[in-house]
């Protein structure tokens, strides 16, 4: 297993919110696999830069890509690239100490922040903006980010959903959690969480109790008088940003929002439709949380339309013939797109693995010239790659946990490759 970062675990380390440690514990389940003598981890080895497809074809019978979605989806509206308009993807990677994002700076000097989108990532960002310094210090957030967020002047955080409450992508535990924030009141417009006839009909038809609970919770928030907490987290629905407004100095000053009503698409989905009414929301910083997007890997067929590796149930396809490419597979977000929780990746990967097993049984595999560990090690040694082994990671992990113990947090992360190599005595 190769990862371009020295550390394993992808978004579990650099995506999952730092105040959600319980979820991160899922990595413990990996120990057994890692201990298998047939398994080896090579951190700090990037596919496409340190290793090419040709290299892998000379070393392995099968290759699986699980590189996730390394970029962001664009909104495609004017003003999207003004200063202080940030993709949530970058903010999240930054506060989680991703080595490639640690040097970014986020200007949090405005009092009002807007977050576009109402998925779980948007909720994460909103919640993080509303935590107190004490709460932040109890997480494994990168220390520089705790420092910056402690200085934050943001008091009002707006979450903007283009459809209604019954179509919001966030899940119930996350919605419940923001209602329990010590330092922020949740503010909801009663009129915006009143169900429209279409959503009501949908709810009745589906009998979806989780959805009913979600709507219920939102209506409870709408009826709740604010408790005068230091910050306010506003949940808005039925509004689409159509432009970010320039403050006259190249920075975000606000958002032009189009008010929506709900309609049904021909295929049955409840969709947003502009009413023609516009409103302006003054906000000095914007986080665009409208989804992630996969990036192409050198030499691997890519489907630009969906932002994934071109595949059928995990088998990589040749774009010309649309037939499977021998020995190449995909799983996770780079296979199906940036959707689903950690658990979703297991059945998703099982589907791919079933294809791999079937191909292996049928002898449809690559014919590597030298499928030995020695050949791989020789290849890496010949380039200037400094691979990090699983044992190295366990050492870093223990150091991070020990530093956390001293600081009263779950762990203090290494956030640069240099720090990590120094800690490993390999500088």
């Amino acid at each position, binding site marked *: 297993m190769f990862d371009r970062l020295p550390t394993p675990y992808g978004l579990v380390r650099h995506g999952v919110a730092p105040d959600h440690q319980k979820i991160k514990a899922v990595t413990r389940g990996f120990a057994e696999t890692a201990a298998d003598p047939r398994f080896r981890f090579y951190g700090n080895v990037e596919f496409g830069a340190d290793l090419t497809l040709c290299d892998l074809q000379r070393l392995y019978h099968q290759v699986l890509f699980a590189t996730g979605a390394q970029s962001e989806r664009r909104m495609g509206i004017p003003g999207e690239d003004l200063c202080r308009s940030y993709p949530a993807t970058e903010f999240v990677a930054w506060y989680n100490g991703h080595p490639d994002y640690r040097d970014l700076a986020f200007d949090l000097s405005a009092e009002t922040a807007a977050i576009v989108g109402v998925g779980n990532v948007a909720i994460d960002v909103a919640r993080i903006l509303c935590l107190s310094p004490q709460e932040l210090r109890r997480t494994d957030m990168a220390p520089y980010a705790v420092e910056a967020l402690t200085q934050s002047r943001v008091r009002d955080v707006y979450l903007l959903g283009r459809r209604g409450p019954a179509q919001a992508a966030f899940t119930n535990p996350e919605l419940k959690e923001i209602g329990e924030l010590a330092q922020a009141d949740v503010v909801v417009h009663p009129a915006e969480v009143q169900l429209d006839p279409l959503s009501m009909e949908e709810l009745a038809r589906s009998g979806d109790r989780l959805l009913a609970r979600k709507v219920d919770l939102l209506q409870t928030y709408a009826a709740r008088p604010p408790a005068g907490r230091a910050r306010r987290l506003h949940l808005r629905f039925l509004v689409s940003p159509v432009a970010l407004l320039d403050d006259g100095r190249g920075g975000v000053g606000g958002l032009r929002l189009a008010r929506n009503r709900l309609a049904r698409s*021909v*295929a*049955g*989905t409840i969709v947003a439709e502009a009413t023609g009414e516009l409103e302006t929301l003054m906000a000095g910083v914007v986080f665009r949380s409208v989804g992630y997007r996969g990036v192409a890997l050198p030499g691997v067929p890519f*489907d630009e*339309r969906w932002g994934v590796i071109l595949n059928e149930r995990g088998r990589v396809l040749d774009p010309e013939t649309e037939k499977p490419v021998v020995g190449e597979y995909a799983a996770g977000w780079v296979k199906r797109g940036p959707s689903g929780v950690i658990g979703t990746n297991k059945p998703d990967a099982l589907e791919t693995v079933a294809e791999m097993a079937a191909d292996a049984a049928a002898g449809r595999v690559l014919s590597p010239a030298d499928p030995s560990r020695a050949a791989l090690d020789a290849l890496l040694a010949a380039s200037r790659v400094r691979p990090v082994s699983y044992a190295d990671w366990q050492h870093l992990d223990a150091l991070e946990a020990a530093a956390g113990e001293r600081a009263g947090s779950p762990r203090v992360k290494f956030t640069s490759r240099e720090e990590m190599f120094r800690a490993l005595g390999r500088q």
Partner: protein
Amino acid sequence: MKLEVVLAARGPRVLTIDAAASIRVAVARLAEHNIGALVVVDAAGHPIGILSERDVIRALAAGEDALALTVGDLMTSPVIAATPADDAEAVLQTMTTNHFRHVPIVDHGVLVGIVTIGDLVRAQLIEVRGEVVTLETRLMDA
């Protein structure tokens, strides 16, 4: 879950046919590719109908000389198309209510794919199993 998630791991294959083509040609194509429906497109590639194996069987059962007819004679038109942004669950509901098993996917006027009931069920199974995995992990943790 949006249809784009279903389409992403489905492969690009969507087979089309001209309304003027004969049913004989259409049947051969269905058999060759082992599929249940063809999207009928106009000269510009826009979907104007759909021809499913059921349309053919129905005609045969009615005693028609189906193989001598054209695709245009037997296709269902207009066709209900979805977009990649449609919710998988809503589309599944629409398909069940209207008793059809294939939906062409159109993005800004361009035919970009097709989903079958089977594709939707597969994607939903993965989602549901994923939720079970999540719950199991939480339980083991507790």
